[in-house]
């Protein structure tokens, strides 16, 4: 388990960092209103790739919000990630339409084929799997996103080869 007091791990981030400057720009756009926290975190995750504790601390300081509040919000919402993302990402839509059309079979194929499951990346951490609660491609179910590329009417038989083809990560 990670220690509860992680203050010592936090490196101070300042506006000298161009990425931090971009976040600061967003904060100014909302006239430093603490209400903009979620909108600011979106931008921060976009430019940093994920929300490290340094980034959360920086955002909290600039918006004059306690770290507990910022951390609470960042961990409440599914779209925010406090860990770096894998190099390649497979997102299987498990929305109802995809579920009815065989999303579970696709998940099973990825598990069997390369031991890839939600929360446990494969290929030495290079490839990760997430579930999405509907990406809105219901007319094209089941849908899978491989490195942001949408595969409509995905098929359990060919999904593994497709993952290799798109990401270059072999089985």
């Amino acid at each position, binding site marked *: 388990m990670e220690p509860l007091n992680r203050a010592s791990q936090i490196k101070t981030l300042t506006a000298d960092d161009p990425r931090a400057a971009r976040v600061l720009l967003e904060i100014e756009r909302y006239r430093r209103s603490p209400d903009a926290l979620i909108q600011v975190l979106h931008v921060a995750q976009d430019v940093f790739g994920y929300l490290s504790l340094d980034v959360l601390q920086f955002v909290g300081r600039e918006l004059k919000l306690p770290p507990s509040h910022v951390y609470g919000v960042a961990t409440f919402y599914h779209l925010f990630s406090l860990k770096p993302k894998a190099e390649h990402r497979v997102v299987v839509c498990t929305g109802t339409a995809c579920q009815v059309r065989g999303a579970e079979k696709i998940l099973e194929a990825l598990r069997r084929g390369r031991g890839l499951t939600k929360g446990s990346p494969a290929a030495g951490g290079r490839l990760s799997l997430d579930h999405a609660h509907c990406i809105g491609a219901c*007319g094209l179910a089941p849908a899978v996103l491989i490195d942001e590329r949408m595969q409509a009417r995905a098929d359990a038989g060919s999904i593994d080869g497709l993952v290799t083809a798109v990401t270059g990560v072999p089985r």
Partner: protein
Amino acid sequence: MNVAEWEARAAAARERMAASGTRVCVCSGASCMVSGGDAVLEATEKAVKSAGLEGSARVVKVGCMGTCSQGPLVRLDPDGVVYQKMDASKAGRVIDKHLKNKALLRESLLFAGPAEPGVERPSEHPFYARQLQVVLEHCGRINPEDIDEYLAVGGYRALYKALSSMSPEEVIGEVKMSGLRGRGGAGFPTGLKWETAYRHVADHKYVVCNGDEGDPGAFMDRAVMEGDPQRILEGMAIAAYAVGADRGFIYVRGEFPPLAIRRLGIAIEQARAAGLLGRNILETGFNFDIEIRIGAGAYVCGEETALLISIEGRRGVPRPRPPFPAESGLWGKPTLLNNVETYAGVAPIIERGGEWYSTIGTAKSMGTKVFALAGAINRTGLIEVPMGITLREIIYDIGGGIPGGRRFKAAQTGGPVGGCIPEQYLDVRVDYESLVGLGSMMGSGGLIVMDDTTCMVNLARYFMEFCMDESCGKCVPCRVGTRQMHLLLSRICGGEGTERDLALLEELAPYCREASLCGLGQGAPNTLMSTLRHFRDEYLVHIREKRCPAGECAMAGAPAGVR
């Protein structure tokens, strides 16, 4: 912009649209884009240019045309002919044959299949003929990134009518008379909500649009945001005038492809630049502006109090009501909160009158409803139907029935907090009360069709898992109840369930429903309860025979040979 300038601009836009000859409308809805719509757009533009038809044809990006399963789609207006399953080379052929040689490219006509020639006039095909489009009337016909096209089809006339000739009370009266009810799913009378927000006196009031379309299988609101965003802004502006608000927010689901957010952003900027948002709108002294807030992936934020708290930048955790948002919402001020589809229905009600709208639908559920058809159905897509239509008409006439010669088993409405409607109720009229009477609900409009390969116990388990994952954790019945019910359902699906588990489920479900704070916990047991009501046999086969009749559940606890 004053009234004269606005009228002149609309007239000029109308003329431009008429003078551009054939409009080659390429669907740029998310579904068509994913199936290669951008390549089609590029190829169409190139073909028009190389054929030297720039003077007599114009390529336009439009929103969703509805028949998503046939995409990418291209429609040629004013002929009204739609071509399906386009790719770059077929798009080139359409331009060549239809535009240059004035002949139909028959093999690519909409709904063309191996046995059928397709339809020349989509409006005569049951998919469109059974629909009645009010909210979607411009969706798929105008360029959503060009406010002039919206003005050309009569955009902002309703706002002007309200501002120039109606008092706020009259606007509210018209909405009340229309019978419009909340299209987010709960069906609360819209006019009544507006009146409450109007009656509460405050220095500031807010108008908020709920675009946090989180039900899996639902893409109605996203299609409207992508296909006709100005319509939502106009509805919100009318609402703001009626209740006395000066600031508005659109809360958009964060998981959506960026298209909806981008188009709303463009729409707001264009409306501001045209003087239709901002200060002194149409020189009537009315001030109103709108901002976008992007959600961050929490289903519970579709609940109204959680949504407002999320706009304030905090954890989206619901709070008890009263006070209702119309009394005390954003930053403690009266806040009117409606769904995307509700706002998109306001402009036609003000323009054509509440009485006109009230003639559509049934006595208690008036008007039209947009549904997203998906699952085991031939024609998936986006439809708008008058209330009171039967499920059978939606699924068989519009949706074209079940593919692969399989048997219809159930229709799921209302998302994770909705329920299932079995075959014997296919002739039920779709209205708020009838669906609730069957243990389901109208919901926001996701309609998922299931055939006999879907296991109803596993479906209940699936939705329970969804609710368990999405429970915010504030109240015990939901946080703990969903987890326990999921455990019991997983046991039954795994072939390890007992009849005692079933009894426990039946004891637990009503507690969760009655004691939870918000609609998520209250609705979480719904699919379980409705499948228990209509498909109890299936549960018993799982328990007694350790067998899944639909063949979906892997029975770990089953003796060898029984699966």
